[in-house]
């Protein structure tokens, strides 16, 4: 099962890059944590999301702030 920002997700993705595409994440201004590991974008394409285990994904985005 995939959890995105602590909510169950029905999405199915083979890699993190695949997931990012399905979520239409912007190409910049995003940070992603997979199972408590901060993963640089350069590694997303080579990071598989196996269906054998749960994956907890936290996605942060740049927003306006002072």
């Amino acid at each position, binding site marked *: 099962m995939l959890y995105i920002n602590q909510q169950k997700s029905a999405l199915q993705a083979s890699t993190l890059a695949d997931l990012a595409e399905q979520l239409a994440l912007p190409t*910049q201004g995003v940070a992603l944590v997979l199972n408590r590991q901060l993963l640089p974008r350069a590694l997303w394409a080579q990071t598989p999301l196996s269906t054998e285990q749960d994956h907890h994904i936290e996605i942060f985005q*740049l*927003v306006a*702030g002072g």
Partner: protein
Amino acid sequence: MLTIAGKTFHSHLLLGSGKFQSALQMQQAVRASGTELVTLALKRLQPGAPLDDLFSPLQALGVQLLPNTSGARTAEEAVQAALLAREAVGTHWLKLEIHPEPKYLLPDPRETLKAAEKLCDLGFVVLPYCSADPLHCKQLEQAGCAAVMPLGAPIGSNQGLQNRAMLEIIIEQANIPVIIDAGLGAPSDATLALELGANAVLVNTAIASSTDPVRMAQAFRLAVEAGVLAQQSGLGMRQARAQASSPLEPGFAHLLAGLS
């Protein structure tokens, strides 16, 4: 010129990007303010919420992005936020802010110093939002911070330089830039900060929550420029007694006939 960590900026005004009515208005204010450093925050993506790309438009304006750690309540949380921000923005510049209680949003000095030490060790260029406490600011400088950002008054309060006396000591003692952050309400507050010797100011609410944020951004730009010019020119000494600025010509007495 404002130099932080070896990088030079022409503008002495840093702008916060929060509270604007739209992304477009924020961009227009950024342009009108002349700022070269704009702060941003990080937030968990809301599933289903529209993705608002602030990154590209700000990049197109040529400003440097300065992510903050808003939301962090402890040093540990701030370090985690910093690592996320570095990944999201691609910069090791960071506005460190740790304010655990919401009523006054005052910076936690102990956690801020602890986080600053750790983040400087990790190679971040750390600009901490901090208490207007001269000793604390010295400690942050010794920890390796690239600047200190003491508050004039609580965030968003528009009260101006309530901590003036302490800010003057901080400015006097600092060997790194002093950026007055938080609480500035009017362009004249920004001018005063620069006149007192601050290197820069960071403004958000006073601009974003005004009736016309773009014109207010321009007002702050001019006010900061005035303050910089005044600082460079050297203010005159304050004195208790008058000092005549015209000759006190004594020869006008009993000069003309027929007037009395």
